[in-house]
Every structure is written in C-alpha cells, then in structure tokens.
C-alpha cells in the first residue's frame, strides 16, 4: 500500500512538473515580449528592463527562476491589472469554490439517490424515466444548459434574479454545473447497485432475516458506492473546466471567468498561473481518488 501511494504521489509530481514545463515554454513561444509597445522604446531602456526581470538570461535559466518563485508563492504579476496574481487568484477561487462545491455535493447526493431508485425499480416506469433524463443530461453541454436556464428562468419566467455579486443566487449556475456529473453518477450507481444486489452476501443477508431496507442500504449501497468514488477525480476536473463557461454566462466573477477574460486579454502570466493552479487541483483530485479507492476496497489489486 505504502509503495502504491508513493508511486502515485511521484506520478502526480511528475505530471505537475510537465504541466509547468508545457505552460512555461508554450507561453515563451508566443512572439513579442512584455515590453514591445506601439512606440519604439529606447533599446538601452529595454535592455535594463530585461535585466531587471531576468529576461536576458537563457530560457532554461528563466524557467528555473520561474519555478523557484512559484515555490516561494510568487505567481507573477498580471499584465492587465499590474497586481500580483496570487491574491487575486485566491479571492476569485473562493467564489468558484462556493459554486463548485455546491454543484459537486448536489450531483453526488441526487445522483446516488436517483441511481438507487433506478436500480430498485429496474425496467419499470421510474427506472425508465430516470434513465431517459440522465441520457438527455449527458448529451447536453454545460454551456447549452446554462444559456437555456438563463433564458427560461431569468428572462422569460423571471423566477430568479440575474446573478449579482451583492445578492448572489447560486441556484441556476449550480444546476447548470451539476446536471452532467449528476447524470453520470446516476448511471454509475445504477449499474454498480444492480451488480451488488446480485451478490451472494445479499442473498445470505436476506435469508438470515435482515430486513429488505437494511439489506439495500447497508449491504447493497455501501458496496455499490465504491465505483462512484472513481468518478470524483474526473468530476472535479469537469466542474473546474465547466465553471469557465458557466461563470461567464451568469457573469459570476470566479476563477473560471477570470481565465476566460485573461485569454481574450492575452494576459499571459495570468493564463499561465491559472492553468498551473487548476492543473495542480485536478492532479491532486485524481491522486486522492485513486488512493481512497484502493483504501476502501481491499479487493483491488495493487500493481
């Protein structure tokens, strides 16, 4: 077990290292430097500026300096606002996290409930309805759902206020973000629940007189939930990426919309910092998922 965990941690570190390499060298491949202005600047001034920001050094050395700064918590300065990126990023991430955590919790809870219902009413009406709607849910990109929700519930029906930071109402964005993972978890729970209910120990438990409810929720569901754990990592990635469009559509000032605006503003240091930050989050979510998965299910072979 310890060997497996060390291996996974090493792999995660290698991934993050590769991501920093890709981002750094990709950003440096873009023609033009930060001091290229419309008006010609005195070459001596540019030379001094480049020396000041270490831009005259070879690329490899610049990378080492960048990583060193990163490890010390210096994520660079935004070209757009001129402020340090880190503090902005953490503030914005707080907003995104509020949205993302709610979406994740709702997706997991509703998904598991719907999935169990579908498994218990197999091939009957509730099952068919649930499967119909979840199939629909997995076929709808989050931006389509988000814009349609905005159109119908904010503009036509007027049930919800359009999102504002002074009076935040997360209902619609959370729905838009959680439908896809919820549908996925529902389908996952259904298959693993059906699988679990056909096991011998379920029959044994029923035979020795355990009540049906207890069998379903204690013996069945607990085992059915193990495969659901594997989806947590991909779900975190989906929510982080999905929040970019959802935040943009609902004009929520989170990390996702910051990323999108920094792309259109060509604010390279911010793009770089946010990419690395999100990548670290995703890699760790995957790491955690894998380790927890092996911990809760000792039957799984460690390779």
């Amino acid at each position, binding site marked *: 077990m310890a060997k497996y965990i060390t291996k996974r941690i090493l792999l995660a570190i290698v991934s993050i290292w590769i991501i920093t390499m*890709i981002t750094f060298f990709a950003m440096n491949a873009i023609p033009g430097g930060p001091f290229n202005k419309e008006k010609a600047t005195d070459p001596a001034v540019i030379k001094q500026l480049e020396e000041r920001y270490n831009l005259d050094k070879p690329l490899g050395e610049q990378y080492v300096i960048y990583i060193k700064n990163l490890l010390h918590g210096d994520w660079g300065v935004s070209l757009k606002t001129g402020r340090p990126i880190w503090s902005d990023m953490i503030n914005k991430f707080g907003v995104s996290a509020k949205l993302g955590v709610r979406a994740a919790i709702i997706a997991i809870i509703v998904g598991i409930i719907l999935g169990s219902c579908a498994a218990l009413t197999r091939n009957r009406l509730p099952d068919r309805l649930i499967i119909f709607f979840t199939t629909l849910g997995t076929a709808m990109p989050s*931006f389509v759902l988000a814009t349609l929700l905005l159109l119908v519930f904010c503009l036509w029906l007027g049930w919800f206020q359009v999102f504002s930071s002074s009076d935040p109402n997360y209902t619609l964005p959370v729905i838009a973000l959680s439908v896809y993972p919820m549908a996925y978890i529902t389908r996952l729970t259904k298959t693993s629940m059906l699988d679990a209910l056909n096991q011998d120990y379920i029959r044994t438990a029923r035979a020795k007189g355990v009540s049906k409810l207890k069998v379903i929720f204690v013996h069945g569901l607990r085992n059915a939930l193990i495969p659901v754990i594997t989806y947590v990592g991909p779900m975190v990635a989906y929510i982080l990426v999905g929040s970019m469009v959802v935040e943009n559509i609902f004009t929520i000032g989170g990390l996702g919309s910051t990323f999108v605006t920094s792309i259109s503003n060509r604010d390279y240091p911010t*793009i770089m910092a946010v990419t690395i930050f*999100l990548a670290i989050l995703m890699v760790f979510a995957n790491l955690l998922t894998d380790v927890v998965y092996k911990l809760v299910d000792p039957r799984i072979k460690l390779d």
Partner: protein
Amino acid sequence: MENKEVKKSFLSAQVDLSKFNAGNFEKATDDEKRQQDVMGESTTFLKDGLRRLRKNPLAMGSIVVLVAIILVILVAPHIVPYSYDEVITVNGQRDKTMTNLSFMCYSDKELAYMEETGEDLFPHIFGTDGLGRDYFIRVIYGTRVSLAVGIVAAIMVVLIGIVYGSVAGYFGGKVDLIMMRIVDIIYSLPDMLIIILMSVVLKEVLQGKLVGTVLDRLGTNMISMFIVFGLLYWVSMARLIRGQILTIKNNEYVLAAKCIGTSNRKILTSHILPNCLSVIIITTALQIPSAIFTESYLSFLGLGVSIPLSSLGSLANDARAGMQSYPARLVIPAVIICLIVLALNLLGDGLRDAFDTKLD
C-alpha cells in the same frame, strides 16, 4: 407356455411394447436422416452483432436521426443558393432591412423585387442573422464543421491508440512497461486546460503563416485542437487496445501463427487486431461525441473555428448577445448539438450491447 401378459404396475417405467407394431421399427430413410442434420444458419460475428443491433429500437432510431442529419448537411448547400459567409443582397444591392429576419420571412426589398420581376427568391428558412446572412445555411455549415471535427478527431485517436496500444501489448516486457508509464503520465494531465493553452499559443505563433492553405479556413484553433487530440486523447484508447491484446496474444492460433514463421506485423494486423474490432468500434462511436463536445465548448469560449466559418458552438455563442430578442438562434444550434451527441451516445451504447458479448 402361454406368454401371459403381466399386469403392469402403475408406477413402472418399463416401455409398454403392446402399443407398438413392426412399422414403428423401420429404418429411417436417407431423407429423414438428413432432417436430423438441420443446424442453425452459420453467422459471422458481424452479422450476429448487427442482428442484435437491429433489435435495439434506440440504436436504430439514432442511426435514422444521424443519417437524416448527414443527408441534410450534404444536400442543403446544393439547394440553398446562399453561402455561409454571404451578406445577402437584393439585385446586387445591400439591403439594410435584411438583418434579423424571422423564420421563412422575406425583407421588404426582396418582396418588392419579387413582385417586380415575378421571380421566386429562395426563402430564409431560419431567417437571417444580425449581419443579414442566411441562418439556415450557417447552421448547416456549423453542423458540417462540428461533425467533421468529431469524426476526424475520433479517427486520429483510434489510429494512434491502435498503433501504440498494440505495440505495447504485443511486445510486452520492458517495452510495455516504459510505454505504459508514458501513458500514465499523459493520462494524468488535464486535457481541457492544455487544449485551451495550446489554442492560445498556436493562435499567436501560427498567425499569418497559414494564409492560402486549407488549414487557414479552419483556423489555428482547430489545428491546435487536433494537435492536442493527437497528443493526449489517444491514451484511453491505447490502454483498452493493450488490455485486449494482452488476453488475445496468448491464444493458440497466435502461437500457431508464430510457429509457422509469420512476421510480428502480420500476426498483429491479421490475427490479433480483427479480434479487438468490437472494442475499437464502440470506443470510436463514443469518442466522436466527446470531440464534438470539446469543439463546441472551445468555440463557445471564442477559441473555436475562425470567422466567418461557423460551428454549432460558435453559433450558440454569437446568439447569446441577442438571446432575449432572437431566442430561436440560440435554441437551434443547441438542439442540434444535443441531438447529435444524444444519437451518437445511444448508438455507442447500442453497439456495446450488440458487439460486446462479455458484458451482459
């Protein structure tokens, strides 16, 4: 002695011969013998799978929907006289009232022109957009682009995945170990972020370098998407193929082929890969919608196909600005994306049920 008939016990299982006569014990004729040899018609793996697929109404419905969509996008550009980037003119003159028309409507100038000349102009089936372009044909081209991106990306993923996975699986040992470590690392990279990053970078790097080529029309964003698909998305395919090959390569017929001196390449292509076909087909069918998803997502972020070409995602994004006044322009591409992805997903599920006999 008289052969006295013994009274048969009620529970006896002995055959009661008195019920038969000599006629019952005649030898069977050749014709009758042949009747015993009747066997089910022999089927191939493909036929068997298709039979099962045909019984699945959802999968068949998806095929119908997909074929209908493909027919429309192939035929429509030949019928509709407008082009996707054409600002519609009446009699060679720009028409200011042409913008934002509703379904099947004509502008005032067009009506006047038709009355004057008696000529029938082609109707604007979905109306026109804010610049006075025919929206129907834009949707048609958008669907073309989205589907083409999905299919090309899926083919790329399949090809790379098959080559990589089969080499790793077939040769095994150290080769496999190293190749699979690489897959592990690539698998853990967040693909969407890298696609966005590469789009941003390639947009700047390739700007102006592609003018005049076919790639220019598609735009640097699509190229970067394909590059990243080629670099990252094949890993799950490679893993699947490798797993399949690991089990298949230990079969006797592979050993037999090796014994008679068949080359590795021949064994792989004619003995092993055909047996992975079901997995390959299913994964490809499910890969297309995921590529369409990615493309529409990028287009929505403004990182998709370059203007004036449209894709379903970019159409939806453009329609967002006027969605209160012209909701149809948002709803149409949205519905088409959902329809395509839904049909492909259901078809993929149907193919899995039909061809993957191991899953029951």
